């Protein structure tokens, strides 16, 4: 599909009931793609994300998700995700199953998925109650006898990330805070990358990651597609929006009204 309109790419790549990971660790969060999932009324998704924040609050509140796999869910520096809490605490708009991990565990699971290994291994999940509520097991090191945690590899049906830019062949370049963007694309069966712009040539940038076009199913141009997250070198994080989201999302009616006005009725290029 190479470079395609976002609505076409979502329509072809994401099906009801899929396991879908939208990643971006504070930086490069694929909000535009998340909004397209909402507009296309995807249902029964297992949503995977280390740090579910505003875009997952929106997906959960709009009834797209059946299950959430995560390690930290909140509005960073602001507080709770009210739509997520409403789903977990009150089952609105529908109950949400949780599979909860630690950051280290999720990171190891994505890396294992990218490496085509059955599980990730780490020194983690020791003590505490989390291990009785999640998918984790113990393995013994065959060389030292040390007991380590094993987490099943994360292999989403669809991995979705945002990046700064692509070239005309669909090779993608991203830089700044890298998160797990590379791992989720390589771990997923299908992948979709939204970019700020398409350029003739990818000028090398310090610390940049390049994802070759043949590792990606669709590249979609979505200027400001990470907003209110940010794209390093293009625009800053809209901290005021994250603060404002607290009030918008606190009440079901104000949330639905905001989604209607800003997402459902938005004209898509």
């Amino acid at each position, binding site marked *: 599909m190479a470079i395609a309109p976002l609505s076409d790419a979502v329509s072809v790549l994401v099906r009801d009931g899929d396991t879908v990971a939208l990643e971006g*660790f*504070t*930086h490069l969060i694929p909000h535009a793609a998340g909004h397209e999932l909402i507009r296309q009324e995807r249902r029964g998704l297992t949503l995977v994300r*280390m*740090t579910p924040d505003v875009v997952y609050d929106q997906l959960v509140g709009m009834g797209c998700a059946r299950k959430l796999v*995560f*390690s*930290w*869910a*909140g509005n*960073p*520096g*602001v507080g*709770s995700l009210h739509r*997520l*809490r409403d789903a*977990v*605490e009150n089952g609105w708009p529908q109950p949400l199953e949780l599979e*909860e991990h*630690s*950051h*280290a565990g999720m*990171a*190891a699971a*994505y*890396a294992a998925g990218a490496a085509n290994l059955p599980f990730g291994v*780490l*020194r*983690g*999940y*020791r*003590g*505490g*109650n*989390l291990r009785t*509520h999640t998918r984790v097991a113990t393995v013994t090191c065959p060389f030292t006898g040390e007991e380590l945690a094993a987490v099943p590899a994360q292999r989403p049906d669809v991995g979705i990330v945002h990046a700064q830019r692509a070239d005309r062949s669909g090779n993608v370049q991203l830089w*700044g*805070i*890298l*998160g*797990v963007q*590379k*791992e989720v694309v390589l771990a997923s069966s299908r992948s979709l990358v939204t970019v700020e712009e398409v350029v003739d040539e990818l000028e090398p940038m310090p*610390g940049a990651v390049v994802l070759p076009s043949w590792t990606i199913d669709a590249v979609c141009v979505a200027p400001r597609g990470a907003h209110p997250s*940010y794209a*390093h070198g293009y625009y*800053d*994080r809209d*901290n*005021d929006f*994250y*603060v404002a989201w607290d009030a918008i999302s606190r009440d079901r009616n104000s949330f639905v009204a905001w989604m209607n006005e800003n997402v459902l009725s938005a004209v898509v290029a």
Partner: protein
Amino acid sequence: MSAYTADEMMAVEAARRIDDGTVCFVGIGLPSLAANLARRTHAPGCVLVYESGTVGAKPEALPLSIGDGELAETADAVVSVPEMFAYWLQGGRIDVGFLGAAQIDRHGNLNSTVIGAYDSPSVRLPGGGGAPEIALGARDVFVMLRHSTRSFVEELDFTTSLGDNVRVVATDLGILEPVDGELTLVAVHPGVDPDAARAATGWELEVAGDLRQTEPPTDAELTALRTLRTKSSV
């Protein structure tokens, strides 16, 4: 001496415990304030590591999130999240990990997962994030938490991370440190009655025989702290 708030006192006292050159794994909020304050005062060489992958970040303003752009722009190195947890935290390169929580018990175990039962919580909290592995992977763990019987509890609703490496708990009332495996009040902030700390603790809080009083913030500390806050974009 200027007037100061209880939160400022808590941040200042946590910052004083960071030595120059210490590698700190920092979360957002009060820990970020304390670590940045240390870097702006007595510990200019302390290294701030944010879990978003920024190693040696030197922000001018306090970031709202652990992934603000300024952290990457000012960092010595930016690494991926899997690398951060595998090579840097698990690799044993972190001296001090800061943690907050909704609840703490007398052993320094922390809950940041749920209030109430896990499957039908009265409050669904954000969850552990980096905490379970920070708690065991950092050499020393500093906890910052406002003192109240809601947070200092006899029994946690959920154990998110273990207290094995907790060396100090800085609160708005004073300082707790483990003595024979149990958190004990070792210092109170100026003007705080130790009985107030005992009353704000959900277990029978032991008070050290040689209970100390922390030094109030200096003008230099307060100025540095407020400058960081003023420059913050929010």
